[in-house]
């Protein structure tokens, strides 16, 4: 048997948690070779990050505990080494970057120092560490690297922060780079850039890259091999192409099936007159103009998707329509009445016609209220919809409608999983029998398979109840599957709008094209084409 650069053998780790002992990973094994990119693919709770933490000695004991297994790095079992030796390996031989670079960078120190520290912690003289930092900042594409060294993490954009993390990891040219969800929460275009940067760097240094992700697209784009994990076990291993075309494990197949962006596109029927007409919508924060004259119509029963990257102003549209913030200009006629001119008192009765489902159900459900209270509050606020005697029955009905069970009514939000919580939020929106539901990134925080289920649910409700949707998302494949029409926004303006087929099949605006090209597809072959297109656009 050839010696791998890094090999995990039969690793089991368990944690003390709220529910007692949980086996986070159960006898998993995989290996990584020099110059290779291995992806560990899994949804939340699959235990995909645990082995990385074990490699970096980042599992706190307690509450964690490694119960069995070996981690062989160049033949040495890391788990048997003393703390000092392991510390010395960290950063020098094996480096790691994380999701959410903002919280993983120390907010109170300049980034230059933080990057240099990676060298200084292993004895690199200060001056050399600084020089190396400057070199790396240039390499990872930070503008004005000299000045950037003295800046603090909060002064960079999300993508730049991830580049800083990468620079930090590469100071000592490690043999292995572990990247834990390095592109999650980044805009698609930035995601593509970060992934290609990693790829280039790997080619330059020949390091092994361990890519932990939940995104099939990332696997298709970047991985040489992938390990699929579910419930703390490795269920399947193979190249992306093999997995995509010949997955043997039902879980892998389920994951692939859930990947959005492959269904029929909807053909909007030439619909009745618009129920909502937005004209010249403006919002400024001081001198900053977040929205600059947005015009669009929404027809009854139509699903209008608003897509764009962070900072495009797409969420602001929703918040202005629902008067969570006050517009600085424009009008929004809802059945002929201007929502923006209503006093709070006049707005109250209109609110039951317009509802919203927020991005993060963990935060949008009051933690201290039971599901029954959360849903029935709608009727307490708007008396006359439903007599109190019928509340209980109606809550049960709504819960069944969104795929939960009536007995869930007595529980509190924290007792549910993310997908279940989003179903509760939808039930709450439905309680008011609205005509329009605005979904603000309503499925973005969910795992792929859950995402698919929720989208199915929304589609079903749309068909049954004739609801109109404004569907705000950054995730293009989901929009492709769900929307009738699409608005593409950039920097507070609509750059393009049209039917879903127009946008996806024949995008006119350059920005729309770039957006589509940057999106990742689960099919390695499709992804290879996208990549080519992206490179072409970049030229």
């Amino acid at each position, binding site marked *: 048997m050839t010696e791998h650069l890094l090999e995990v053998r039969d690793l089991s780790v368990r944690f003390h948690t709220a529910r007692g002992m949980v086996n986070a990973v159960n006898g998993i094994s995989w290996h990584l070779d020099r110059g290779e990119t291995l992806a560990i693919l899994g949804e939340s709770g699959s235990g995909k990050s645990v082995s990385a933490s074990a490699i*970096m*000695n*980042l599992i706190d004991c307690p509450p964690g505990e490694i119960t069995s297994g070996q981690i062989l790095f160049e033949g040495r079992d890391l788990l048997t080494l003393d703390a000092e030796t392991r*510390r*010395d*390996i*960290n*950063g*020098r031989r094996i*480096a*790691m970057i*994380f999701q*959410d670079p903002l*919280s*993983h*960078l*120390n*907010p*109170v*120190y*300049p980034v230059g120092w933080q990057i240099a*520290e*990676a060298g200084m*912690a*292993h004895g690199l003289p200060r001056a050399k560490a600084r020089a190396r930092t400057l070199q790396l900042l240039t390499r990872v594409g930070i503008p004005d690297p000299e000045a950037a060294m003295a800046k*603090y993490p*909060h*002064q960079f954009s999300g993508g730049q922060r991830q580049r800083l*993390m990468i620079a*930090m990891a590469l100071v000592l040219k490690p043999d292995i780079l572990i990247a834990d969800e390095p592109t999650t929460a980044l805009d698609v275009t930035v995601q593509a850039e970060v992934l290609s940067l990693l790829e280039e760097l790997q080619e330059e240094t020949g390091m092994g890259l361990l890519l932990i992700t939940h995104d099939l697209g990332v696997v298709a784009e970047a991985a040489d091999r992938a390990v699929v994990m579910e419930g703390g076990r490795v269920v399947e291993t193979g190249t992306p192409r093999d997995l995509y075309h010949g997955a043997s494990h039902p879980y892998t197949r389920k994951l692939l099936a859930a990947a959005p962006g492959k269904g029929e596109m909807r053909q909007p029927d030439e619909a009745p007159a618009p129920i909502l007409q937005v004209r010249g919508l403006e919002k400024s924060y001081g001198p900053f103009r977040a929205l600059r004259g947005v015009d669009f119509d929404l027809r009854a029963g139509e699903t209008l998707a608003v897509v764009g990257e962070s900072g495009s102003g797409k969420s602001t549209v929703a918040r202005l329509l629902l008067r969570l913030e006050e517009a600085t200009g424009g009008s929004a006629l809802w059945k002929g009445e201007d929502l923006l001119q209503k006093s709070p008192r006049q707005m109250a009765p209109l609110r039951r016609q317009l509802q919203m489902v927020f991005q993060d159900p963990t935060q949008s459900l009051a933690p201290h209220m039971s599901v029954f209270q959360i849903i029935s509050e709608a009727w307490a606020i708007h008396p006359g919809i439903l007599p109190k005697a019928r509340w209980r029955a109606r809550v049960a009905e709504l819960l069944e409608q969104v795929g939960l069970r009536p007995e869930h009514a007595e529980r509190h939000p924290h007792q549910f999983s993310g997908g279940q919580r989003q179903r509760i939020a939808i039930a709450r929106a439905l309680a008011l029998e609205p005509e329009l539901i605005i979904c603000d990134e309503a499925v973005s925080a969910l795992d792929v398979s859950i995402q698919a289920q929720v989208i199915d649910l929304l589609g079903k409700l749309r068909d049954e109840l004739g609801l109109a949707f404004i569907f705000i998302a950054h995730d293009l494949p989901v929009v492709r599957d769900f929307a009738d029409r699409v608005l593409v926004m950039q920097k507070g303006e609509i750059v393009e709008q049209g039917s879903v087929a127009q946008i996806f099949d024949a995008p006119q605006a350059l920005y729309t094209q770039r957006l589509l090209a940057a999106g990742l597809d689960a099919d390695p072959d499709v992804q290879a084409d996208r990549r080519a297109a992206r490179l072409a656009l970049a030229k």
Partner: protein
Amino acid sequence: MSSMLGKRAVSSFISLMVLIVLVFFLSRLTGDPAALYLPVDASEAMRDNFREIHGLNDPVLVQFTHYITDLVCFDFGDSLRKARPALEVVLDSFTWTLQLALITMALVSAAAIALGSLAAFHVGSWLDRLASGLSLIGASAPDFWIAIVGIVLFSVTLGWLPTSGTGTVWHWVLPIAVLFIRPFGLILQVVRGSMITALGSAYVKTARAKGVRNRPVIFVHTLRNAMLPVITVIGDQAAALLNGAVVVETIFGFPGVGKLMIDSILQRDFNVILAAIMVTALAIFLMNLLIDIAYALLDPRIRT
């Protein structure tokens, strides 16, 4: 920064003015200083004369107008009791209080931060338990009780320290020790909690992944971040000390502003009360400013 400073100064000034008006009128409702100042068998004529000399016979509103017009010229009036300018009386005491507060807070902060960090790093260890236990008991005992037991034990029985007063360094030990206890417990708990949070934070994970040693992880990466809530508490506690430690000053015969305050209140020496309030308010305002500056120095996010 300077516009914020200006705004703060204005709002503090308004609060102070309201405070002065309140204190001025309310304190005059608490009885006649002449009755307290003069012996019980003094005649009505003597009392009247006393009030006349000190302007206490005028209607309260007139008295107030006089006070404010004098105040504009930085004349804080004279102490009824001491026949000295009230401001001078207060500043005398305040220098003592300032020294006591600064030394105590410096020691408390150093000790609480050191011990709190250690406790946070060894959660559940004997050190952690000891620190928590000590801070708990310290925060629970009446300070005058501790003070007297301290004198009985360390001065009378053991003879190690002078009982009270000022003079040598040794005189400061007991008062500071008594004042030390409560803020120490409080700050220790905040440091510990804040350090535990900081140690569990993502950037510490990054530092470990970089291979940074334990000590720099605690003292470089964690401590500075954990200091932010701690500074707020230190500020609050220092403010409390600047207001004077009445009980401790009374027992140890320490000529601070707290003792001056209680004496002036009991003797209805209005000018001294008002001057003391203004001086301490100014000191606390300046200290809060220092805290803000410290905040900005520690956390670059606040600077921009």
